[in-house]
């Protein structure tokens, strides 16, 4: 049977990797060398300082994602890999948005931040910095809800993910 290329789907892959220099480039190098796509990648040490946890958002058909997880597992420094999107999980992303806040826009932007449960963490006479967390869709909607002309810059962290309930990724 030929490899069936099913419709590309978004997958959230979470992994534990030895916290050593060069580990990140092994992962990113694998994606670029094999032509896999990375939408976002986040990495930071865990409660065990010898391990880092990485969350990678990618899109691919089932077969491609199967190869991605196999190749990640094959990297010598990778301890464990799980495809979070296989079952119930939570995703969160942090966004900082700097917006122009003058005149009537000042009130409007504040109201919008409140609706999205964002917090204003920096204030000047002419600008706000709004901090917002949520899944990607929520952050996208916030950016869509604000007048594009007011946005000075946006910074997004890429998502972190964790399985719901008993599903634990641990050594």
């Amino acid at each position, binding site marked *: *049977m*030929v*490899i*069936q290329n099913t419709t590309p789907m978004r997958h959230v892959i979470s992994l534990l*990797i*030895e916290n050593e*220099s*060069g580990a990140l*480039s*092994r992962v990113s*190098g694998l994606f670029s*060398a094999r032509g896999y796509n990375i939408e976002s990648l986040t990495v930071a040490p865990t409660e065990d300082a010898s391990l880092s946890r990485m969350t990678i958002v990618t899109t691919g058909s089932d*077969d491609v994602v*199967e*190869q991605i997880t*196999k*190749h990640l*597992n*094959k990297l*010598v*420094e*990778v*301890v464990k890999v799980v495809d979070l999107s296989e079952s119930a999980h939570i995703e969160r992303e942090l966004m900082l948005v700097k917006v122009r806040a003058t005149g009537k826009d000042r009130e409007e932007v504040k109201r919008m931040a409140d609706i999205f449960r964002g917090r204003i963490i920096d204030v000047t006479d002419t600008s706000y910095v709004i901090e917002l967390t949520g899944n990607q869709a929520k952050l996208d909607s916030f950016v869509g809800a604000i007048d594009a002309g007011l946005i000075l810059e946006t910074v997004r962290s890429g998502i972190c993910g964790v399985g719901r309930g008993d599903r634990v990724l641990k*050594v």
Partner: protein
Amino acid sequence: MVITGAEIVIRCLQEEKVDYLFGYPGGAVLYIYDELFKQDKVRHVLVRHEQAAIHAADAYARSTEKVGVALVTSGPGATNAVTGIATAFCDSIPMVVISGQVPSAAIGQDAFQEVDTVGITRPCVKHNFLVRDVRDIAETIKKAFYLAKTGRPGPVLVDIPKDITAQKCEFVYPQTVSMRSYNPTVKGHHGQIKKALQLLLEAKRPMVYAGGGVVLGDAADKLTALVRKLGFPCTNTLMGLGGYPATDRQSLGMLGMHGNYEANMGMHYCDVLLAVGARFDDRVIGSPAHFASEPRKIIHIDIDPSSISKRVKVDVPIVGDVGEVLGELLALLDSTAEKPDQESLGGWWKQIDEWRRRDCLKFTQGEGLIKPQYVIQKLWEVTGGDAFVTSDVGQHQMWAAQYYKFDKPRRWVNSGGLGTMGFGLPAAMGVQLAHPGSPVACVTGEGSIQMNIQELSTCKQFRLPIKVILLNNGYLGMVRQWQELFHGNRYSESYMDALPDFPKLAAAYGHVGLRVDKPGDVEGALREAFKQKNDLVFLDFQVDATENVYPMVQGGKGLTDMILSAEDL
């Protein structure tokens, strides 16, 4: 005892029972070379170019069951090594490469002979390390050897800054390694193996397809026992030659782009396929869509899970060491009274024999020009089929694979995955050092041999009595063949003018060189060459420049779309 990092490196190699170290000195590895000088357990082989050191170490590993080891300096030493490392990586060869690096404080300062060796080699090693502390050297080298030879083997590089080799610490060589992130599966899943056996017993048109994994996993005996017991046909990949005896009746020879007619047809029309340590690559099955057009059940045994269902969907995947899994299959087969259906198997063999009668490798050696195939056939006869044969890349490589019938594993040493021209001669050095008394032939072309011809000098220094079998057709033959067949006879840059006088060149390096241009002289020249136990003999065979490699499956086409001979065009 407190010793320097350099001495630790050498002590580690001694602990690993390394007898040959292939290398080239330079600034960043001076302390290591100084320690080499003070001992005589690890023998250093000074090559003439770092690429050759890596190929020699690689071939040493291919022809033995040991890990090949090479030592190069920083910067250009490391970059010259990259082609060799990638060659070993593509063919999963266990190897440890130690590279010098500029002193720790100079890293990132664009120092003299500085490159990011770990960064450059990352995509073509199984793993690599930059040692940052003298106390880590021993453990890192221990890990490097362990990683190189376990699981799916591969090259591992250890980059050591110069200052680290001068610092001192206590030397303790770890006896064991354990890495929480690295635990390759060795034993196959019992349930899957049972399922596989059931499929094999029910097969009506079975086929065994064995790759380099059988050779690397030292599983040729088990494969042979299983194939014979089942009475199935067996085909080998380019990397798997010798994994099943080629002269056996059940062998269909090599398959793939230049594979035998019967092997390719059998592969395509079988109903149950047992793939062992092979990876369905593009040179083997051609187009995956065409291959999938014929229904068949596939069992795939491989140590690397990522090789399974990569290009072809597999029905019964078995992850594990091929030797272990084949052993378990054999034991299960022994314990059952069931046998394959002899009637359908008989019919299948009848079909295969019919395909065989096409005699796809036939050629005619007339009175005129020497046919390259004839040289290989005679080489096989003269050496009793028992020589170690290394090759470069191109037409001569395919002819060697087709016409030298390998009955034993680890006798055929070639760059299958990366297809590295320049591999053959340095590879022959590694093989000859590993097997001092055995005949070693390097089958090459006039294009390939010039990519590492400087190693004739190394061969002289170490008195390696290699026999260089040059099939000289004046063309980059495989390129010429494709240009003839697919690019309207436009021979763009595939003809090399001003070739050296090879026998004289060999003589200049202190070897024996001989030109052969008559078919009647081929056998005599070969016999004479192999009688020279102490000398390298360079035989320059002037062969028919118009000869092409057949059968041939054009890249991307289906396995059954074979061009069998010039008449098919």
